[in-house]
């Protein structure tokens, strides 16, 4: 998802390329245009993910037991048999259910292989709303932490977009960009695109601070304020681009590329057509 807008970058300087054969010139230009189209198709936001969590079960004790089994099978190798942490992975004591729900529902955990950062990916077959709830319950039992938010707490319709926008600009966009398109961090880390995150996941990320992300706890940014921010994020990412193709909404980089690859290329083509030598007929 984050590799959308800039796949064109490698053609950054391509517009200046000069070829000798006229057909080659056209071919390069057409290729560039096709690329832009392709990139746009990838940029277009995908469908909503299936909601990963459901209502909390009443059979909490059963969940803890079932969760422990799942944990031992799939998590303990890195996080330790009792979630105490190992050199490869942090302790899970005190991270709370929200952290587990976030990590598992976004596919980041269980991790495929350690790297600078765990990417969002498709969840494995055994991970579903029930198993996530069970593992969450087990981890929560190791030492309490932030809980999974209720549907109401993250309902974008109940938030105030304008107030949320101010908080979003103050606290989030420095990493995630104006519209949540993501951005780079140091040494290979990055702030992911927010297009696929569910309201619950956005909330959970704020309260738990997954990976490099800092924590925004409920006592300084209240749950209502978080809901306002979610309303803004969801509202803005779903809004129409009134000016046409959004170009990945990452700002002047793709705009500059479009100016060269569409604007200058089309005009050079027009100039070639206007001045083309007609074949002399004999």
């Amino acid at each position, binding site marked *: 998802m984050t590799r959308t807008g800039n796949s064109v970058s490698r053609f950054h300087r391509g517009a200046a390329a000069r070829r000798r054969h006229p057909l080659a010139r056209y071919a390069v230009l057409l290729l560039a245009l096709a690329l832009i189209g392709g990139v746009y198709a990838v940029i277009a936001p995908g469908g909503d993910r299936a909601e990963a969590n459901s209502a909390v079960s009443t059979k909490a004790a059963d969940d803890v037991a079932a969760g422990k089994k799942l944990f031992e099978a799939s998590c303990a190798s890195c996080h330790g048999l009792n979630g105490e942490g190992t050199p490869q992975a942090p302790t899970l004591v005190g991270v709370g259910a929200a952290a587990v729900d976030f990590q598992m529902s976004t596919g980041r955990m269980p991790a495929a292989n350690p790297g600078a950062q765990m990417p969002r990916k498709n969840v494995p077959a055994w991970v579903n709303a029930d198993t996530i709830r069970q593992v969450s319950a087990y981890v929560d039992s190791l030492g309490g932490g932030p809980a999974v938010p209720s549907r109401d707490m993250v309902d974008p319709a109940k938030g105030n977009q304008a107030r949320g926008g101010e908080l979003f600009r103050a606290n989030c966009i*420095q990493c995630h960009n104006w519209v949540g398109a993501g951005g780079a961090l140091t040494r290979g880390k990055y702030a992911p695109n927010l297009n696929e995150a569910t309201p619950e996941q956005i909330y959970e990320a704020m309260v738990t*601070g997954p*990976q490099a992300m800092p924590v925004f706890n409920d006592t*300084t940014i209240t749950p209502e304020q978080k809901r306002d921010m979610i309303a803004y994020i969801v509202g803005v990412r779903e809004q129409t681009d009134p000016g*046409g193709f959004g170009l990945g909404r990452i700002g002047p980089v793709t705009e500059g590329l479009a100016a060269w690859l569409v604007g200058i290329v089309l005009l050079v083509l027009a100039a070639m057509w206007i001045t083309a030598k007609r074949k*002399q007929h004999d």
Partner: protein
Amino acid sequence: MTDNTNDINEPGEERVPKRILGTPPSEGGYLVHGEQIDESREAPGIYVQDPDKARRTEKYIALSFLITFLAGIGFIVSYVVFQVGDLDSTAVSNATLGGTLALALLGLAVGITLWVRGIMPKYEITEKRKVLAPSPEQRSELNQIIIDGAQQSGLGRFKLVRRTLLLAAAPLGLLPIVLLRDLGPMPKTALRHTVWKKGLRLVVEGTGQPIRAADFNSPGGILSVVPHGYEHDMNALAKATLILIKLRPEEIQPPTKVENWTVNGIVAYSKICTHVGCPAALYEQTTHHILCPCHQSTFDATRGAEVVFGPAARPLPQLPIGVDNEGYLIALSDFEVPVGPSFWERGDAEKKVREGEKA
């Protein structure tokens, strides 16, 4: 461009005709309309369009112009029909207005190009160049005129005129610069201070709430913080905005570990990058690095925000903070050193602070 080039063609160039279609004979008028095809065919070097082809091209040209006409009408209709006011309607209005405008302009452009290429005869003419440099005679004539004029003016002989004239011009030239003086005040020491002072509360940017130290208790937490009462004062914010970071007390190392400057692992750094002043606000809680998104200067929050990467040459200044008797975070003083980008008069303020402490 003094040469009349209409009929001048290189005699040796067989492909360039002696006279060209559309070129007026010396006594003639300009061709505006009329079937010239038959006779002009005889002129060598001119490629006259095949009349049948030209007729066919005419249809395409007419089609292009017709498209322009329709698109022009479409523009007006779109303007009247599609209102603006929200994103979706603006999107429709923008696309239809822009689309019809583009279609109208491009239709005309294509039509005219077809017209030039398909109907107008194609040929090259040759224009002679003149050497641009003047001949020696012209030069000496001009020189003489200049010398004569200078002598007539008498400036060489009447020294007083010359000198007082120069004297008179000097202040006149300065006037515009003098007039610009009131563009702004003198800098004085404005860049050395911010609005922070002892007792001023830290409030959350965007909500204006004061922050209780006990509430900001999750390690890895960060907040963008502004001075109470200055939430919308741009000049104050440009220097006084902070990032407030909650660390585990044991993570804090010198020089951040200064007595009374932190509260339970909460540290406050200037958010204004010391490179060119962007808000340096990306915080990675795993590495404790603060990154500026503009030019990627990286600071270590546990070590006095010292520079670990990028073009910034100085650490982010730290604000001494404490709590008031209600438990809210307050500033203990202003920054000890100027915040933000370096400037000529800044000097090594950090060194002076160190020396001041020793003394």
